[in-house]
């Protein structure tokens, strides 16, 4: 065991002392922090990247002015303009495009532009036109006080979700928060396993191409070398991760204190920052959420409250558990692949079968956020190669205890089996040179004795 610790120490120290490690460790949180600060800044300041869009209406003038401006598009009604003429010159006159409304085909306005218009813009145009058309149709019924009636009937339903536990206690939850956490847990797991796993592979290849490996395995068992490397790299990853979290929080705190002192702005930033801190990662849903809720900060604190109602202990425990077992499982496969090849370019044929379950898991995890109870999610959260990612996505929506236990038990059994098999392949692979390795070859190595 003592020798393994010597190996872990070397693997750890040589990586941590590298310039690239130090640079990445310092720069990444700075980038992340500025992203966190700049994003709301961009959203709040209503970026001046205006698109000017011409609105032309054929023969009538009922809809020309109904499309309101948005923060990045101005709609300019050109009464009486000729559409054929405009098509030829809208760009030179500084318009992004034309919305052409004809009373003959009121449901199918035409949008002319040089580029494919973004979906948001289309939705905005169709939405405002629909509303106006509906209003016009209602008007035909000659209802008195239509305006005030319309105002009165406008409602906004927002369901509150409460989870009932065994004892009949209810806890208020938020599907949005659960989705955010699911997304985050799955994605983070994917990144960690993949990035550090492939580092293990590169380390093994380095030792093999340097021809240093045979000297080492005359002192330690190949399995000890492999485990030392896997653990050492895991520690490097954890170190980097901790520093990132710490530096990101520190940078945001400092920047917020000094640079941004404008009232509302700061509050929003603060909220976004907190939500991001909460999850340690920039995550799109939470930022979008923040954007939508920004005028109503009270709403926002409610989100936090419900976020706190999540079973954090379980989430953190599961994350650590699945990270360790998932990483060991994949890292040992990566180590076996590294041992079987002579250089990195040869790894491709072996990478594909490993990438497929990971990518698959990621897709299922995304699907899980829509439908956490699906059969697909259930099975993928039990199968060990995909369970770390998919189960992490399921946990925020609460998972039956037996499923969690089965998934974890399978995971433990599988990772032990994989480490054992990988060690066998590794033992033979590291001493093979100049032979193009095939899957058949690896299968043979698995069955070699001693």
């Amino acid at each position, binding site marked *: 065991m003592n*020798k393994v610790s010597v190996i872990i120490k070397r693997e750890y120290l040589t990586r941590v002392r590298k310039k690239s490690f130090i640079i990445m460790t310092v720069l990444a949180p700075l980038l992340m922090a500025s992203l966190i600060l700049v994003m709301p800044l961009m959203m709040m300041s209503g970026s001046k990247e205006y698109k000017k869009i011409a609105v032309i209406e054929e023969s009538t003038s009922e809809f020309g002015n109904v499309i309101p401006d948005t923060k990045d598009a101005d709609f300019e009604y050109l009464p009486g303009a000729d559409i054929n003429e405009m098509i030829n010159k809208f760009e030179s006159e500084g318009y992004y495009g034309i919305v052409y409304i004809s009373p003959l085909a009121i449901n199918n306005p035409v949008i002319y532009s040089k580029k494919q218009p973004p979906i948001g813009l289309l939705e905005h145009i169709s939405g405002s036109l629909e509303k106006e058309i509906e209003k016009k149709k209602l008007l035909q019924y000659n209802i008195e006080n239509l305006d005030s009636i319309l105002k009165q009937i406008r409602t906004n339903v927002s369901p509150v979700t409460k989870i009932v536990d065994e004892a009949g206690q209810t806890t208020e939850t938020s599907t949005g928060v659960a989705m955010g956490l699911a997304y985050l847990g799955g994605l983070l797991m994917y990144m960690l396993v993949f990035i550090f796993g492939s580092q293990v592979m590169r380390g093994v290849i380095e030792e093999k191409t340097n021809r240093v490996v045979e000297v080492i395995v*005359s002192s330690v068992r190949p399995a000890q070398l492999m485990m030392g490397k896997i653990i050492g790299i895991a520690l490097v990853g954890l170190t980097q991760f901790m520093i990132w979290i710490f530096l990101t929080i520190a940078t945001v705190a400092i920047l917020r204190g000094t640079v941004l002192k404008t009232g509302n702005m700061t509050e929003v930033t603060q909220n976004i920052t907190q939500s991001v801190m909460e999850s340690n990662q920039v995550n799109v849903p939470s930022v979008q959420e923040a954007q939508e809720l920004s005028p109503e900060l009270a709403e926002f604190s409610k989100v936090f409250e419900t976020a706190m109602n999540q079973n954090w202990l379980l989430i953190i425990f599961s994350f650590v558990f699945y990270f360790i077992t998932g990483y060991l499982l994949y890292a040992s496969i990566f180590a076996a692949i590294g041992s079987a090849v002579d250089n990195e370019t040869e790894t491709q044929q072996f990478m594909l079968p490993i990438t497929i379950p990971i990518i698959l898991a990621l897709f299922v995890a995304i699907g899980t956020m829509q439908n956490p109870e699906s059969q697909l999610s259930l099975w993928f959260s039990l199968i060990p190669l995909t369970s770390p990612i998919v189960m992490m996505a399921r946990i925020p929506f609460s998972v039956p205890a037996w499923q969690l236990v089965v998934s974890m038990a399978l995971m433990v059994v599988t990772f032990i089996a994989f480490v054992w098999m990988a060690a066998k392949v590794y033992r033979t692979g590291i001493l093979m040179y100049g032979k193009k390795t095939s899957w058949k070859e690896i299968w043979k190595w698995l069955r070699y004795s001693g």
Partner: protein
Amino acid sequence: MPLFEARNITKRFGDFTALDSVSISVPERSIYGLLGPNGAGKTTLIRIINQITGPDTGELFLNGRRLQPDDVMTIGYLPEERGLYKKMKVGEQALYFAQLKGLSKSEAMKRLKYWFKKLEIVDWWGKKVEELSKGMQQKVQFVTTVLHEPKLIIFDEPFTGFDPVNANIIKNEILFLRERGATIIFSTHNMSSVEELCDNITLINKARTILEGSVSQIRKEWAGNEYEMVFNGEIKVPVNGLYDILEQNSENGKTILRISTKGEISSNEILQTLMKSGNIISFNPALPSMNEIFIRVVESRN
């Protein structure tokens, strides 16, 4: 009692037999040559001795005891495929290897200082390995191989990559290690170094032992009936039915003569005949070089 013994070692990789019942017995404080053409199975045998792989059948003994996993501490190994971590500093790296062999840091430090001074590589302690020439790297590697003072040291092609001066330094260090009590197994294609260094050899070809014994014995056995002698001054050698003249050279006032005798004739009879021709300074049975023996044995088997 031999220090190391391997008995009937067989190792197969799938259908391929790498070693077929090979045995070697290495006397204590000797240098044992492991010879054979490429792919004969030498490296596999060496890996088995180092417990990097295990034999399918056969037994290994060190000091009369069965070889144990812990014995790697008393074995030093310089593989043919050797290298160092390129980005790591020389001193750090040497310390790392020493610690893997079970030395404490302080003890390793002490011994490294001694060896670095001895091989005149102290100045490279803080340099990265990639800054060193190949020969320099080999020296560092040599130090890491012997640092834990192993009883049994295995050198696989130790002289490749060295210039003649440094090769000589390493050769002397190997002899010095034997002086101090180490037993050495030495695998090489360089036959002149086998003649110079090895006490005993085993020649492996296609997974089997085809020749073994002490170097001097083997050379005598393969000597046949050739003699080499040196005369003072230029002479005329009588031609008769006793021998064939293989070679006759005169230079610097001396004549070198190589003959091969015909039939059962003792060296005394030859001497008596040739004494009449001139003043003989030396007379030796002409021993075939290990190189010749190697080629002859391997080719006869193929």
